[in-house]
C-alpha cells in the first residue's frame, strides 16, 4: 500500500512531464507551448500559491529536471522556439534553467556548451550561463550542499560537479576560444566564486545561530580543489580579508572557519594553507581563521612547521613572520615553536646544508631562525640555551668556513643576534662586516613588530655609503660655511652646482719622489722613513715603465722585495700600488719574473694573501700583455698610471668573469651577424709567446702538500683562485700556438676537482672549462680531447641540472653551448654558415 502511495505522485509527474515534452516536440501552436512551459515551471514554484504539491515538486527536481533541461538544449534549434517572443523565451525557456536545482542546471549548461558547435544557440547558452553566474546561483548551489538535507548525490556526481565548478574557466576557454566572456576568465570567475563561497558561509553562520545543522564538506572541497588547481591567490585574496574581519568578534564565524579548514581534504590542504598564509594580513588573523588546526591535523602540522619554514624558501619574510607569530600566539601551539626552533637550528647549523643548499634557502632558514629566537621568552630561552649555543657555535663555524662572502656574512649576523639574545655572561659576539640590505633585514628581524598588521619591510635609516664619503671628502677640504646672517634674496645658490669628486685633494708632502728605480729598491729594503717609502712606492710603477733597462736589471730582486713587503706605515692604496708595480715588472721583464713568481707560489712559508697576490699579479700582467698597445705615450707619462687602475680586486674575482662574459657576448653576436665589423688593427700579441711561462709552472706541483700549504686540502680559497687564474691565462691565450697544449693540460687538471665541495672552486673549474672551449681552436679540441669530450659533456649536463649554486649552473650551461657550437663548427662547417 505504501508503495502505491509513493508511486502515485511519481507516475503522475512522469506523465505530466512526458505530455509537456510531447507538446513541445509536436505542437505548432503558440498557446499550447506556453501552457506546457507553465506546467513545467509550476513544479519549480515554491510559493504558497503553487498548484503542485511538495512531493510532486521534489519528484520533479529529483528525477525529471535534468532530463527536461537536456531536452530543451537538444531542441534548441527547433521551430517551436521561434514561435515565442524574445521576452517569453527569456521568461519561459531561460527561467527553467535559473529556477531549478542549480547543480543540475550548471551541469547541463556546461554539457551543452561542451557539445554545441559555434552558433547562435551556443551564444545563447553562454549568455545564459553568464546570467546563471551573475544571479548568485553558485551561492545557492554551495548553500544547498551545506544543508544537512542537501541533494543526495553519488560521489561521482559530486566529483564531476566539483570539477566543473573549479575548472569552469578552462572548460569555457577551450570551447569558446576568442569568443570567451570576460566573466569566465580566471581573473573574474575565481573572485566571484570566492564571494559566493563567502555568501554560503554567511548563510551557514546564520543557520547555526538559528540552531540548524550544516555541513561544510562541499564548500571545503570546492576551496581545496580550486586551490590545488593554482587559483589560491585570487580566491584567498577575496576570502582571507573578509574572514579575518568576520572572525574578529564573532565566535560562530570562527567555528565555521575552523570547520571549513578541517573539512578540506588532506590532499588539498597544503595548497589551501600556503595560499592562506600569504593572503592573511597578520599572525592573529591566521590564528582566528585556522584555529588550532596545526595541532589537530598531522598534514597541516607538517606543512606549517616543516615545509613552509624549511623547504619552500620562496616566500617573503612577511609570511615567515605570520607563520611563526601564529605558532607563538597560543599556549598549546607554543610547544611547536620550540620544536620548530630545534629543527631550524639543526638546518641552520648543518655543515652539509651550508655547502649543498642554495643560498636563498639558507637565507630563508636564517630569517626563520632569527624570527623564532625573537619570539622566545626568557624561560624558554633558558631551557633551550644549550641547544642554541651548540647550534650557534657549530653553525657559525660552518658558515665562516664557507668561501662565499654572503654565507659568511649571514653566519656573522645570525651569530651576533643569537649571542645577544642568549646573554652569555653579558658577552656578545661582534663582527665587522659591511652592512647591506640583507644584513639590515636580518638584524631587523630580531625586533618583533608589535603592530597587528605588519607593514612591508621598510628600508629605514640606511644611509648610502657615498653620502658618508662625500661628507668626509668635503670635510677634508674645508669647513662648511655656515649660512650667512643676512639671507641673500637671489634664488641662485651654490646648491645647483654639483661638486666633482675631490678625494684626490690630499696634502702635499715636502719630500720629492725618488727619480731612480734603485733608490726605490733601496728605500723598500732599508728605509725606516714612512714618507720615503710611500713616495718610492708611488713612484715605482712609473719608474719601472719609464726605465725598461734598469727595470730588467733588478726586476726579480724588486719583485721579491715587493712580494714580502708589508704595509708598515698604513699607506693609502698600498695594495694597489704594490700590485701595480709588480704587474709593471712582470710586463717589462716577463720571463724571469714569472719564473720567480710561479716558483714562489708553491714554496714554503708564504701567507695565503701572498699566494693570492702572486696569482693576481700573474693574471693582471697577462691581461695587460694580451691587450694591444694602443697609446705609446701612456707608459712614459708616469704620473697617473695609478689612477687608471681599477680598484683593488681583493676577494672579488668577478672582473675576470666579466671579461669572459663579454667575450662570449661578442662571439655569439659575430656568429649571428656575420663579419660586418671592420677588422681590428693588426698588432703583435705580446702575450702569445710567453703564455706558457705563465701557465705551465702553476700546474706543476699542486698535489704536493706542504706543512703550510695544502692546495687539495683545506686551502680551497687558493685552489679556487688558482683555477680561476689558470682559466684566465687560458682565455687570454686565444690564438696563441700554445693554446691547444694549455687547454689539454687545464682540462686534465680540473678534472680531479670538478666535484669539489666548495662552490668557489667549482665556479673556478667551470670558468676554466668555459675558457678552454673559448680559446682552443675547435679542430684541436676535437682531435686532442676527443676521448674526454663525451665525459665532460655528461658532467656539464649534470652540473647544469643539479648544482645548488646558480652561478655554477649558468656557467655549465654556457660551457655546454660553447662546446656544442665548437663541435658543430668542426663537424659541419657549412651548416653553421647557412645558419648564421
Amino acid at each position, binding site marked *: 500500500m505504501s508503495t502505491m502511495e509513493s508511486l502515485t505522485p511519481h507516475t503522475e509527474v512522469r506523465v505530466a512531464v512526458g505530455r509537456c515534452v510531447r507538446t513541445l516536440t509536436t505542437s505548432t501552436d503558440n498557446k499550447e507551448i506556453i501552457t506546457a512551459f507553465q506546467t513545467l515551471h509550476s513544479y519549480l514554484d515554491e510559493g504558497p500559491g503553487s498548484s503542485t504539491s511538495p512531493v510532486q515538486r521534489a519528484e520533479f527536481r529529483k528525477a525529471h529536471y535534468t532530463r527536461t533541461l537536456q531536452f530543451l538544449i537538444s531542441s534548441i534549434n527547433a521551430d517551436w522556439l521561434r514561435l515565442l517572443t524574445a521576452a517569453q523565451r527569456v521568461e519561459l525557456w531561460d527561467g527553467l534553467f535559473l529556477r531549478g536545482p542549480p547543480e543540475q542546471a550548471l551541469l547541463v549548461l556546461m554539457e551543452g556548451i561542451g557539445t554545441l558547435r559555434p552558433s547562435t544557440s551556443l551564444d545563447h547558452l553562454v549568455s545564459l550561463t553568464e546570467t546563471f553566474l551573475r544571479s548568485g546561483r553558485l551561492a545557492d548551489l554551495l548553500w544547498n550542499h551545506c544543508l544537512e538535507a542537501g541533494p543526495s548525490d553519488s560521489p561521482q556526481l559530486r566529483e564531476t560537479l566539483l570539477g566543473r565548478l573549479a575548472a569552469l574557466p578552462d572548460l569555457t576557454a577551450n570551447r569558446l576560444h576568442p569568443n570567451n566572456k570576460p566573466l569566465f576568465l580566471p581573473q573574474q570567475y575565481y573572485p566571484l566564486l570566492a564571494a559566493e563561497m563567502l555568501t554560503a558561509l554567511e548563510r551557514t553562520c546564520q543557520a547555526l545561530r538559528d540552531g540548524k545543522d550544516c555541513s561544510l564538506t562541499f564548500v571545503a572541497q570546492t576551496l581545496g580543489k580550486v586551490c590545488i588547481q593554482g587559483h589560491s591567490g585570487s580566491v584567498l585574496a577575496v576570502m582571507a580579508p573578509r574572514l579575518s574581519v568576520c572572525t574578529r568578534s564573532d565566535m560562530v564565524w570562527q567555528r565555521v572557519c575552523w570547520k571549513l579548514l578541517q573539512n578540506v581534504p588532506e590532499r588539498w590542504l597544503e595548497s589551501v594553507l600556503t595560499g592562506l598564509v600569504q593572503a592573511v594580513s597578520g599572525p592573529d588573523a591566521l590564528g582566528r581563521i585556522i584555529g588550532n588546526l596545526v595541532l589537530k591535523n598531522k598534514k597541516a602540522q607538517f606543512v606549517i612547521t616543516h615545509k613552509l619554514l624549511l623547504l619552500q624558501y620562496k616566500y617573503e619574510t612577511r609570511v615567515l613572520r605570520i607563520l611563526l607569530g601564529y605558532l607563538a600566539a597560543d599556549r598549546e601551539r607554543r610547544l611547536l615553536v620550540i620544536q620548530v626552533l630545534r629543527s631550524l637550528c639543526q638546518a641552520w647549523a648543518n655543515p652539509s646544508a651550508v655547502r649543498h643548499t642554495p643560498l636563498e634557502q639558507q637565507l630563508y632558514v636564517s630569517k626563520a631562525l632569527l624570527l623564532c629566537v625573537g619570539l622566545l621568552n626568557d624561560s624558554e630561552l633558558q631551557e633551550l640555551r644549550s641547544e642554541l649555543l651548540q647550534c650557534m657555535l657549530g653553525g657559525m663555524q660552518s658558515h665562516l668556513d664557507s668561501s662565499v662572502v654572503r654565507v659568511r656574512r649571514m653566519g656573522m649576523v645570525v651569530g651576533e643576534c643569537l649571542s645577544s639574545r642568549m646573554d652569555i655572561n653579558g658577552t656578545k659576539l661582534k663582527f665587522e662586516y659591511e652592512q647591506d640590505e640583507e644584513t639590515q633585514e636580518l638584524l631587523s628581524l630580531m625586533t618583533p613588530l608589535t603592530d597587528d598588521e605588519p607593514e612591508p619591510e621598510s628600508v629605514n635609516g640606511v644611509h648610502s655609503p657615498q653620502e658618508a664619503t662625500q661628507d668626509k671628502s668635503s670635510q677634508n677640504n*674645508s669647513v*662648511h660655511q655656515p649660512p650667512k646672517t643676512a639671507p641673500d634674496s637671489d634664488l641662485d645658490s*651654490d646648491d645647483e652646482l*654639483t661638486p666633482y669628486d*675631490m678625494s684626490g*685633494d690630499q696634502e702635499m708632502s715636502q719630500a720629492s719622489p725618488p727619480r731612480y728605480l734603485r733608490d726605490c729598491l733601496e728605500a723598500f729594503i732599508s728605509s725606516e722613513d714612512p714618507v720615503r717609502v710611500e713616495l718610492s712606492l708611488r713612484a715605482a710603477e712609473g719608474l719601472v715603465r719609464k726605465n725598461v733597462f734598469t727595470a730588467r736589471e733588478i726586476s726579480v730582486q724588486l719583485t721579491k722585495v715587493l712580494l714580502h713587503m708589508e704595509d708598515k706605515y698604513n699607506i693609502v692604496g698600498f695594495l694597489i700600488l704594490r700590485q701595480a708595480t709588480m704587474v709593471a715588472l712582470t710586463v717589462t721583464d716577463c720571463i724571469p719574473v714569472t719564473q720567480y713568481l710561479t716558483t714562489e707560489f708553491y714554496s714554503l712559508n708564504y701567507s695565503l694573501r701572498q699566494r693570492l697576490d702572486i696569482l693576481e699579479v700573474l693574471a693582471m700582467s697577462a691581461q695587460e700583455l694580451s691587450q694591444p698597445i694602443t697609446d705609446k705615450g701612456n707608459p712614459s707619462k708616469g704620473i697617473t698610471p695609478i689612477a687608471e687602475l681599477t680598484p683593488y680586486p681583493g676577494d672579488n674575482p668577478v672582473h675576470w668573469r666579466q671579461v669572459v662574459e663579454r667575450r662570449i657576448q661578442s662571439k655569439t653576436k659575430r656568429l649571428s651577424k656575420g663579419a660586418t665589423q671592420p677588422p681590428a688593427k693588426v698588432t703583435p700579441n705580446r702575450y702569445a709567446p710567453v703564455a706558457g711561462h705563465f701557465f705551465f709552472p702553476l700546474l706543476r706541483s699542486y698535489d704536493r702538500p706542504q706543512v703550510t700549504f695544502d692546495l687539495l686540502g683545506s686551502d680551497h680559497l687558493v685552489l679556487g683562485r688558482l683555477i680561476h687564474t689558470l682559466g684566465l691565462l687560458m682565455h687570454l691565450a686565444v690564438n696563441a700556438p700554445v693554446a691547444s697544449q694549455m687547454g689539454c693540460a687545464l682540462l686534465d687538471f680540473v678534472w680531479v676537482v670538478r666535484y669539489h665541495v666548495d662552490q668557489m672552486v667549482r665556479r673556478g673549474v667551470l670558468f676554466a672549462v668555459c675558457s678552454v672551449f673559448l680559446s682552443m681552436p675547435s679542430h684541436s679540441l676535437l682531435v686532442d680531447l676527443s676521448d674526454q669530450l663525451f665525459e665532460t659533456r655528461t658532467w656539464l649536463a649534470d652540473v647544469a641540472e643539479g648544482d645548488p649554486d646558480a652561478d655554477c649552473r649558468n656557467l655549465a650551461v654556457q660551457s655546454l653551448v660553447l662546446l656544442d657550437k665548437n663541435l658543430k663548427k668542426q663537424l659541419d662547417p657549412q651548416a653553421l654558415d647557412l645558419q648564421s
Partner: protein
Amino acid sequence: MSRPAPSPIYTLRGAGGPLNALHFSCRGGDPPLLFSGSGTGAIHIWNLNTRRAEKVLEGHSGNSVIWISTLQSTNALISQGRDMRVCQWDLSEGRGEVTDSVWTGSVGFCQCSLLEMSPGTRLLAYPGQQTEEIKIIELPSKAPVCSLIPDAKLGMVMCIKLWQPDSGPGPLLLAGYEDGSLLLWDVSQRSTLSQAVAHPEPVMCLTFDPKRLRGISGSSEKNLSPWMLDGQNNLQLQDPVSLVNPGVSQLSIRGDGKLVASAGWDHRVRVFGWKKLRPLAVLQHHTDMVLSVAFSDHQDPRRRLLAAGSKDQRISLWSIYNEGADTG
C-alpha cells in the same frame, strides 16, 4: 656618485717661463684671445681657436711680467713688469709696440689695478717707490691723482683693487698689506675708510665682487678669508675657508658671480661656489705652483673657460660649470 674630477680641455705649452699673469679677451673680435705674461718678460697672445701663440711681445727687457690687462675702449694692452715699468701697447692692425710707459719705481710683486672711469679715461693704481705707497694716476694723461700711504706701519703693499661703487662719489681702493691687514681707501678723500686684519701672514692676493660688495683674500697660510662691506663701508671678516695645502697666488671670481677659483701653491686650482664658498672641484694637472687663474669673458656662457698658468710653464684651460652640455 660624485662625478670624477675633471681634466683640462687643453693645455697651452711653450710660454718658456712661469706664467705670472693671464688675461682673456673673448668679448669683442674674433678670434678669442688669451694674453699671458711670463717670468721671462714675454707676453704671449694665444689664439684660442688655433690654440697657438699668435704673437709674442717683448717689452720689459727680460724682466718678469707680473700683470696684464686690455683696455676696453681701444685695441690696446697694458702690462706691468718687474723692470718697474707699466707699458701700454698698441695692438691694432697687427701692431705690437709700446706706445707709452710709466715708471713705477716699485720693486715688489704687487699687481696694478685699472679702472675705466669713462670712455677714454681710466685710473691706474700701482705700487709706488716707497714699499707701502700706492699711487693713482689718470690715463692717458698720466696726471697723478693721489698717493696713498697708511698712517700705521703695515709693511709692503701686496695687492690692490680699484673699484667704483654704485653709490658714492669717488672710486674706492682695497689694498692688502704685508702684515695681513686689508685697507679700504677712499680715493677722492685720500683717507682710509676701514681696516681689518684678514690674515696672520702677508695678503698674497685679493679679489672683490662689486655687485655683492663681497671679496676674498688669500695668503701664504691654509685659509682663504672672505669679507664683506656693510652699508657704512666697514670691512667685516667672515668665517675663513680652510684649504688642504697652504699658499694661494691668485683668486678670481667668474663674471656671473657664481664661481671663485684659487691658484694654489700646491699645484692645484680649487673652485668654490662664490655664494657659500662650498668647495666644488679641485683641478689637478700642473706639476708646479699655479701662479695665475682667470675666467674668460665669453659672451656665450657655454664657451666660458677657466685658465690657470703655472710655474711649470703651461697654461691649462678648463670648461666647468657651464650651462648646457656640462653644467654642474
